[in-house]
């Protein structure tokens, strides 16, 4: 019988999937945010390029998003309020997936602006959409994993929240 041996092994292994998810998703958020911080005006234009949000909130989103991404990334890497941050991460990724799909659907040729840039020359932008979506779906899967299994080794949650 397999189950007697594999179940405990699986139980030991699963938390480390969570650690990997935290580091990957958190690392991507930190990189994405840091690359956007140098040019706030560019972020505003990148948000505007999607033509989805009303102009009155476009600058606010453009200024807020990079900071939110860095903080979210730090929390995930440190394992701080992992479940809550998994929810925030999933919601943001869903929003990006909607944004990119809708830009694609409307035939817009824009840069995703995911890692800074955006509002730039978008040669070949349309060929990039599927890859950007695939990446975001992958990150979404890992974020949802963290909602399902938020308790992982090497996390601040383990110290702050009693088991």
């Amino acid at each position, binding site marked *: 019988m397999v189950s007697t041996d594999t179940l405990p092994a699986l139980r030991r292994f699963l938390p480390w999937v969570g650690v990997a998810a935290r580091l990957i998703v958190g690392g991507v958020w930190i990189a994405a945010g840091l690359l956007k911080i140098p040019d706030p005006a560019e972020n505003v234009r990148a948000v505007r390029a999607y033509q989805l949000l009303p102009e009155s909130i476009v600058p606010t989103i453009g200024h807020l998003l990079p900071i939110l991404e860095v903080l979210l990334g730090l929390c995930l890497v440190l394992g701080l309020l992992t479940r809550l941050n998994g929810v925030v991460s999933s919601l943001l990724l869903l929003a990006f997936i909607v944004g990119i799909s809708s830009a694609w659907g409307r035939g817009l040729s824009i*840069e995703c602006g995911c890692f800074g840039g955006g509002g730039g*020359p978008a040669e070949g932008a349309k060929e990039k959409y599927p890859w950007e979506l695939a990446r975001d779906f992958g990150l979404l899967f890992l974020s949802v994993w963290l909602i399902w299994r938020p308790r992982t080794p090497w996390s601040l949650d383990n110290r702050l929240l009693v088991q």
Partner: protein
Amino acid sequence: MSKKRSIATEKSNARRAAERAAAIRKEQEAKERRRRTLTVTVVVLVVLTVLLGIGYAVQSSRDTTGQVATPPDGVVEKYAFPFGDPTAPVKVAVYEDFMCPFCGQFEAVSKDMLERYVDQGDVEVRYHVISFLDGSSNTDYSTRAANAAGVVLDTTGPEAAKKFHDLLYANQPEEGSDGLSDDQLIEFAVEAGAQESDVRQPIEDLKFEQWVKNATEESSKQDVATTPTVMVDGESVDFETLDDLLASTTDAIESALNN
């Protein structure tokens, strides 16, 4: 018999009491855990909100777009360099960045066509020089070049500005390079007809920097997400390739002229 029964009762009472105590303890521990989780969550959330607020304030204050800026003398529609007869029936707006390689290629293939229409008095071209590729050079070449074009327009007029614009595209630096130096920009300005003594200071001091930022922001509000973007009488020309763009622009101009 009764003695035995009472011992059994006592035992079971004791066990029940112990169980109750354990249950209460367990519940208290659970309560304590919940309280602690809540406290930690609230404290962390407050700290994160404060950090988010500070970061937002910093980002907003670093974004100077929209602040009042003096435009160069001679611009039309606040942000455009005019080329051609202002009474020409068709207006062609071209949005471009001096660093954008595709703009350079577009300039090379469209120059003769546009100049022919302008010479015939059919078209006025309005160059919207914007700057979003500062990250593609090590020296903010996009902004420096756009500013310099503004300086030439301001000091020497639209013909010199058009000549300067053509010179910068004919000598376009590669993406990722240092771009042209201020001295080279000044040399080209002089070649286009400007006096060095007029243009050196404002080119070096980025006199129209804020105006360039505002022009870039305004273009994004016009849904210009790619460069070059060409609009014929306000209608954006769709394209996939450079050949498309050239052909569609010519078609759009022709159909505008025939209307």
